[in-house]
């Protein structure tokens, strides 16, 4: 039923949006059984309807058109107003990636990746993205729990605001961070006066910028899973004498663990690719704040081979992340279907 080109091939590049869409459907652990249970029914309907439609068509169309039956979509030929744009869309996504791989300086790649500046950026990126992910887990999971389980005034607004960084241009986030945590910022002023600490243009600022941009991905994943998980298990734990904290650790968290894992991977990938907020809030200081995306950008001006090499590393990382998430989600989806069937 899926349009050609909308599946696997388009995915490698799909930093945020398709991955998020995929996550949206898995976030709903117990929602997906219903959704999946609905699918066979829909398919059954689809199978019936075309049978009817086919009768009409075979009556009207020349016999040779019937050859297309059974290929591609169930119930008729492929409509070109969908196929042509789909193919163009797939091309738009794939062509640049092909270009990147095509132009890659494969011979000098090992040498380029051993260069100090490259290794520095790589190592800095891995470190900061990992710390940002840990920070997001420590803050984002409780935040998701609060949004999903505790009723308080303005919860709807809080939900919307927490996810704002997902749609906010990252550079705007960087400016906001600068105005909040800068030496003369709303909060940064007191930080500087009290401790002489200035956040911007430090490695810590990179982590803060990455967390700001990436944590919502984790929050949304975990919150969705919490909302669709069966809260009666928490009731059962309460009747067994479990405190809310014990229930969270032993019942709630294990139930949404796959979504926490998927959210963390997504969060890490987003932090790794962070550019706009980082360059605005933390600058591009080699060894301190110049992460891989920033290194790619600055290398483009001088040494495009190094930029391509770094880009390849980021591309491979994205593909690996996507593959990891698929592997994580598919079994979960299968479980959901078998649970719904049982």
């Amino acid at each position, binding site marked *: 039923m899926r349009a050609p080109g909308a599946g696997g091939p388009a995915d490698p590049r799909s930093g945020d949006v398709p991955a998020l869409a995929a996550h949206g459907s898995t976030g709903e652990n117990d929602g997906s059984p219903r959704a999946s249970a609905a699918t066979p029914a829909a398919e059954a309907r689809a199978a019936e309807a075309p049978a009817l439609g086919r009768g009409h068509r075979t009556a009207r169309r020349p016999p040779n058109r019937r050859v297309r039956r059974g290929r591609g979509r169930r119930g008729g030929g492929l409509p070109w107003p969908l196929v042509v744009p789909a193919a163009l869309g797939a091309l738009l996504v794939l062509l640049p990636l092909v270009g990147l791989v095509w132009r890659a300086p494969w011979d000098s790649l090992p040498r380029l990746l051993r260069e100090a500046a490259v290794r520095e950026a790589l190592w800095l990126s891995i470190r900061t993205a990992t710390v940002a992910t840990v920070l997001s887990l420590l803050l984002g999971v409780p935040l998701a729990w609060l949004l999903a389980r505790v009723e308080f005034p303005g919860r709807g607004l809080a939900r919307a605001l927490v996810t704002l960084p997902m749609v906010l241009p990252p550079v705007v986030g960087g400016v906001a961070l600068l105005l909040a945590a800068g030496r003369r910022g709303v909060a940064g002023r007191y930080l500087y006066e009290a401790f002489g600490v200035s956040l911007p243009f430090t490695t810590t600022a990179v982590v803060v910028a990455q967390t700001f941009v990436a944590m919502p991905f984790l929050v949304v994943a975990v919150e969705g899973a919490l909302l669709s998980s*069966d809260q*009666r*298990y928490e*009731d*059962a*734990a*309460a*009747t*067994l*004498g*479990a*405190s809310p904290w*014990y*229930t969270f650790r*032993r*019942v709630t968290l*294990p*139930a949404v*663990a796959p979504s926490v894992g998927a959210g963390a991977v997504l969060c890490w990938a987003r932090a790794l690719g962070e550019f706009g907020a980082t360059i605005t809030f933390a600058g591009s200081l080699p060894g301190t704040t110049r992460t891989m995306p920033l290194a790619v950008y600055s290398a483009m001006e001088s040494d495009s081979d190094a930029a391509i090499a770094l880009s390849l590393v980021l591309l491979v990382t994205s593909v690996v992340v996507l593959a990891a998430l698929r592997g994580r989600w598919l079994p979960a989806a299968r479980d959901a279907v078998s649970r719904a069937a049982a």
Partner: protein
Amino acid sequence: MTVQEGAAGLRARVVVGRGAFTLDVALDVAPGEVVGVLGPNGAGKSSLLAALAGLLPLRDGLVALDGEVLDDPAADWFVEPRHRPVGVVFQDYLLFRHLSVRDNVAFGLRARRLASRRDASATADAWLDRMDLSGFGPRRPATLSGGQAQRVALARALATGPRLLLLDEPLAALDATTRVDLRAFLRATLPATGAAVLVVTHDPTDAAGLADRLVILDAGAVAAAGRPADLAENPPTRYVAQLFGAAAPERR
């Protein structure tokens, strides 16, 4: 009906409501007694259990267990579910999927800090033995049959030594053979727990087979109460007569 505090077992008058529906039921259950709550879907059976477990606060009335008041809206007194000596066996068991059978049964002991990990596991295994589930400890709930899962849920509820045990449709999800076996098993096991036991069911046969005494609910109120045999032979109302008369064809 007034509620006498200080008496053993459950003394309750439960008034809860959702929207236009109001449940108003007075109920006494002695320790070791098994009372069946029978009624059609929507009669308020599940609300009654939720109120007694503390998952649904009373709007009016009183719940007291062995003289200890658990819920008294007039006095603004409410004991949280986790502080109540009440065990619940849920209709679809709600076994924790990520925990082994043994850890499921030990859950209450660990949560209430009644035992160390090792002692809780040993106690859980002893309960599994009593439920004819020796050796099932390491298994996952997903690998159990319905009858086995039901007995694990019962063991989990009993492991903390509740003084009130609530069972919500314990036989509804089982196939016919398992149902007969488990009914006999519950008939032998439940009175021996020494707890006041309340079994909710929509099936008159199950209710008569399990309970010493029946309370029949209809539209949120007690329609009849008494020993199963008496009610069947001498139905006080038309509804009760229909219930027992129509028992066979209505059974699912």
